[in-house]
């Protein structure tokens, strides 16, 4: 198993860091997408009211 092996802590470290980086990227990308969607809807509504 993983825990008893040599260098297992290094493996744990690398997995943690990599997955953290990936999750951060996914989270930021999702947040940017949602935020932009909302901004776009708002501005399209405002323009419709103008016309």
């Amino acid at each position, binding site marked *: 198993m993983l825990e008893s092996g*040599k260098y297992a802590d290094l493996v744990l470290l*690398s997995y943690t*860091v*990599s997955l953290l980086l990936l999750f951060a*990227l996914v989270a930021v990308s999702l947040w940017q997408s949602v935020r932009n*969607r909302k901004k776009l809807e708002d501005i399209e509504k405002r323009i419709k009211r103008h016309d």
Partner: protein
Amino acid sequence: MNSLWQYANPRKFNDTADKILPWIAVLSTTCLFTGLTWGAFFTPPAERFQDSVKIIYLHVPSAMMAINAWLMMLAASLIWLVRRHYVSAMAARAAAPVGIVMTLIAMVTGAIWGQPTWGTWWAWDPRLTSFLILFMFYIGYVALWSAIENDDIAADLTSILCLVGSVFAVLSRYAVNFWNQGLHQGASLSLDREKNVADVYYTPLLLCIAGFALVFIALVLLRTRTEIHARRIRSLQLRERGDDNA
């Protein structure tokens, strides 16, 4: 090829992205999860590396995607310069942060993996150093996009930067080999296909590579859609300001 160019239409791109993104996201998570757990828990330790060989399941796929992301940006930049489809330029811009994260993961896992071999947290091994240089090119690319206000000019300049940068990135790859030769000859971190990739490691590795590739595709689709929206927001804001002035 006719059918591929229809995605240059931003609306068609967004509609298609909306449809296939959830599927790709699920598929990529499955591949990655399966590959990583299989590799981490159900494969034996190697003779020289012991358990640290398991880092291969992160290091190799991320390194591959770091390079592939840049290549995709190069292709997208060329398409923008030649055919002026702004979806292409948006896609290049969207892919860059993904490439940066892939490069980071490749460098960090490479450095960690090298720790037992070199005894230090960073070895100026040719491959790791090449990724560091690639990282710097990525950062410059993203910085240039952010520094220019006009969308079209930014797209043009960053595309040319990507083109010229690719030439110098390849040149650096060879220069770094010269620079490093004489140190640790032969004992670099690069994997010998024959030596290490025995059957027992191979399948989970393939799963992880597929997982990383799908994660890349999913993220680029998501981010390109965001960029397309952002561009529309900018043009609508300009229109709004024009209406207010009128």
